């Protein structure tokens, strides 16, 4: 049942009870009144008859004193009229218990009246006096009747008075009872509204403070309060789920960006190492080239100094081996770096995906907030209606009016909370989008880097093959030097070629080193972005931590 229906029902029942009581009272009073009228009328009739009989008695006595035509007429007329009156009283008398007196009076009077014609004819004063005295007998019966009727009437009036008093008291008593019951009912009614609303206000305050941890059960009610509680409960749950999801996502982002940042630092370091190594290598290669140059000079002298030549060839061979080893190291470092880059790229992509999902969730939050805003608007409307109803109910609704204003406050607070959520979500979303862009740029950079690495690796491998081949050639030269002097010429030529290649390599290496430096700068840039992301994620996490889930 809705609050309005309950309110109307309680008022209706009270009104019905009061009207019923009043109706009852009126019926009772009406009945008493009609009894009073009937018996009172009869009493008056008896009393009148007594008076008329007294007149008649007096008329007879006057006739006894002074016989005259006039007196005769009067006496006879009165006796005739009284005979009719007594008969009428006898026929209409209501109270059976007292009827015997009427009957006797009537019988006596009719006996007396039989003597009237002879009395009038004889005009005997003694007889007339006796007749007057006999009328006293009728009067006595009537008097007894009068007394009894009067006492009965008195009792009736006393009863009417008692009844009226009792009815007044009852009405008062029942009215007080009803008012009391109504007051208790209204109190219970107001409490049944105020209590849940207090609870809702408390929860709403918690929500607006960002505490979503309370998992409250909506009461089993079918009225507006029940609906409000259920919608608040649902909002609380949904909001909490969303916040938890945001929180965990931002936490994950934070951890990931932290990890990515560490990885990047590593990459930068490795990249530095690699630059150094390449630089070293370039230096080594130059040395080899220089050595080869000098070897060429020496080889000219080799014709003469094979032994020395052999020694030098061996040294060159050893140098080649060293270059090979250095190059192998370089490739390893490069492979390491490439692996790290690939990993960073994968992480970057996953980060980007997370980010996209996170953005979707912020949209969900916005929808949620819109829902809450809708609920708040409804609540506000409801509170307005409630305030109008309370005003209409007057004093009885004052409690409910307070409740209505509480509900209005709640709606406003909810609206505020929703607005703060909106702005928060917008900030988060802007940060996320920016982050996503940075990530995309970083991933692209990394991809370019990786292809650079691959190219470099190929070039290194080729160089290594060349160096290896030189080493073999040197070894072969060393063994053949002894055998053929003429072959020394070709060696010199080959060494010259090798020296050119070596110079080329050295130049390539310098190029690689420069590219590595560029890469390092790019990595440092990524690192900075990562730090930003980390910071944003941390802010986001702090924001979501604001909600106690």
């Amino acid at each position, binding site marked *: 049942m809705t609050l309005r229906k309950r309110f109307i029902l309680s008022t209706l029942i009270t009104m019905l009870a009061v009207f019923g009581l009043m109706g009852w009272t009126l019926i009772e009073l009406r009945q008493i009144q009609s009894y009073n009228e009937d018996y009172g009328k009869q009493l008056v009739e008896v009393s009148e008859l007594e008076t008329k009989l007294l007149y008649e008695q007096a008329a007879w006595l006057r006739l006894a004193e002074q016989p005259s035509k006039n007196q005769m007429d009067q006496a006879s007329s009165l006796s005739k009229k009284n005979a009719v009156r007594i008969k009428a009283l006898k026929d209409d008398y209501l109270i059976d218990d007292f009827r015997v007196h009427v009957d006797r009076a009537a019988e006596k009077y009719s006996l007396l009246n039989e003597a009237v014609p002879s009395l009038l004819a004889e005009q005997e004063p003694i007889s007339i006096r006796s007749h007057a005295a006999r009328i006293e007998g009728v009067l006595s019966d009537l008097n007894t009747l009068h007394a009894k009727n009067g006492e009965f009437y008195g009792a009736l009036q006393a009863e009417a008075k*008692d009844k009226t008093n*009792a009815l007044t008291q009852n009405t008062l008593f029942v009215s007080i009872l009803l008012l009391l019951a109504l007051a208790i009912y209204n109190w219970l009614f107001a409490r049944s509204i105020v209590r849940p609303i207090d609870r809702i206000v408390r929860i709403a305050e918690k929500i607006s403070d960002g505490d979503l941890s309370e998992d409250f059960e909506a009461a089993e009610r079918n009225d507006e309060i029940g609906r409000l509680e259920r919608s608040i409960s649902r909002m609380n749950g949904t909001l909490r789920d969303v916040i938890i999801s945001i929180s965990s996502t931002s936490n994950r982002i934070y951890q990931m960006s932290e990890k990515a940042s560490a990885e990047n630092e590593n990459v930068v370091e490795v990249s530095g190492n690699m630059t150094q190594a390449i630089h070293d290598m370039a230096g080594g290669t130059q040395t080899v080239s220089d050595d080869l140059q000098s070897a060429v000079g020496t080889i000219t002298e080799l014709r003469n100094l094979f032994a020395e030549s052999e020694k030098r060839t061996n040294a060159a061979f050893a140098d080649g081996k060293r270059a090979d080893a250095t190059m192998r190291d370089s490739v390893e470092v490069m492979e390491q770096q490439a692996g790290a880059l690939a990993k960073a790229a994968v992480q970057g992509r996953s980060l980007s995906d997370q980010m996209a999902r996170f953005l979707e969730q912020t949209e969900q939050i916005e929808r949620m907030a819109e829902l809450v805003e809708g609920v708040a608007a409804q609540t506000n409307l409801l509170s307005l209606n409630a305030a109008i109803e309370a005003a209409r109910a007057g004093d009885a609704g004052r409690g409910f009016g307070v409740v209505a204003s509480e509900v209005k406050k709640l709606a406003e607070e909810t609206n505020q909370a929703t607005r703060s959520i909106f702005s928060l979500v917008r900030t988060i979303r802007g940060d996320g989008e920016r982050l996503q862009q940075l990530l995309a740029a970083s991933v692209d950079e990394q991809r370019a880097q990786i292809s650079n690495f691959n190219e470099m690796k190929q070039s290194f491998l080729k160089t290594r093959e060349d160096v290896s081949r030189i080493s073999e050639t040197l070894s072969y030269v060393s063994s053949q030097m002894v055998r053929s002097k003429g072959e020394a010429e070709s060696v010199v030529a080959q060494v010259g070629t090798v020296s050119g290649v070596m110079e080329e390599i050295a130049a390539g290496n310098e190029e690689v080193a420069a590219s590595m430096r560029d890469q390092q700068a790019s990595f440092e840039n990524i690192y900075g972005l990562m730090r930003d992301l980390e910071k944003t994620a941390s802010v986001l996490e702090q924001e979501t931590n604001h909600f106690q889930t």
Partner: protein
Amino acid sequence: MKNKYRSMVLGMTIVLAGCTSVLDDPASAVKERKEIGVVLSDVGLGDQSFSDAAMGGMLLLREKDDWFVDYRELSETKTYEGGFEALAKEKPNVVVGLGFMGQQDLEKVAKKYPKQQFAIVDAVSDLPNVLSLTFSEDEGSYLAGAVAALESETKTIGFVGGMRSPLIEKFENGYRAGAKAIDPEIEVLVDYAEDFAAPEKGNQLANAQMKRKADVLYAAAGLTGSGVLQAAEKKGHKAIGVDTDQTAIAPDAVMTSMLKQVDLAITEIAHQVEQEGLQGGHVTLGIKEGGIALAPIRNAEWTADENTRIEELKKDLLNGKAVIR
């Protein structure tokens, strides 16, 4: 909540239903009042004597003490017994009989209703539930005799009794003693009509006594007495009435009446019964109690001396100096 209202309405109904009505039982509404029932004697109301006096007493009781009064007449019940029986059935506080003529019937009914209080005026009964009330008629008759003696010029006065009986003889004796107290030589003529309801007979006897020079006549003979009084009036002589003030019967002749205050007897009975409950016994009402008196003197040149003389005799009666044989 609904149940609460329901029980409230139920409670209300019970409270209202609790106001039981007296309307169904009118008799119960009439508060307990004392009631006296009197069986009037002889001709009943209009006798201008005993019955009318009794009615006067009943009216006094009714007016002053709020008693219910009821009565029966012989014309109604045919026998005294019927009247007593009818009143006894109504269970009044007391059923009263007037005159010795109803005594037998009253005692018969009194035996039948031993718990009912009865009373008899002018006769004495031995039954435990019958209160007897008599008058000192001799005292009143003594004063009447004195008045007659003082008024008589012929030194001859007359007495007419209704029926020779101890009661009426008390009248005669008192009358004679009173007359002798004034004038020991005075002659008192005495006749009995042997009928209480024969004015003609009274007329004859009165005329006979007046022929024998009686000039003041005293009648103790009920309705018969009214014939005596009217006869005296016709002859221009004086008469003394009995029981009630009988001036109206013969306005020019009746100089006084020996008043038997039956109304006082009725109220006396009522008060005694009211105070002491069921009782027998015998109460006599005389000059002292105010049960006997003389009506104011009329139709005579009454002097202060004569008045003083009557007052002296009254004192004699009160202090026992006067002796009635």
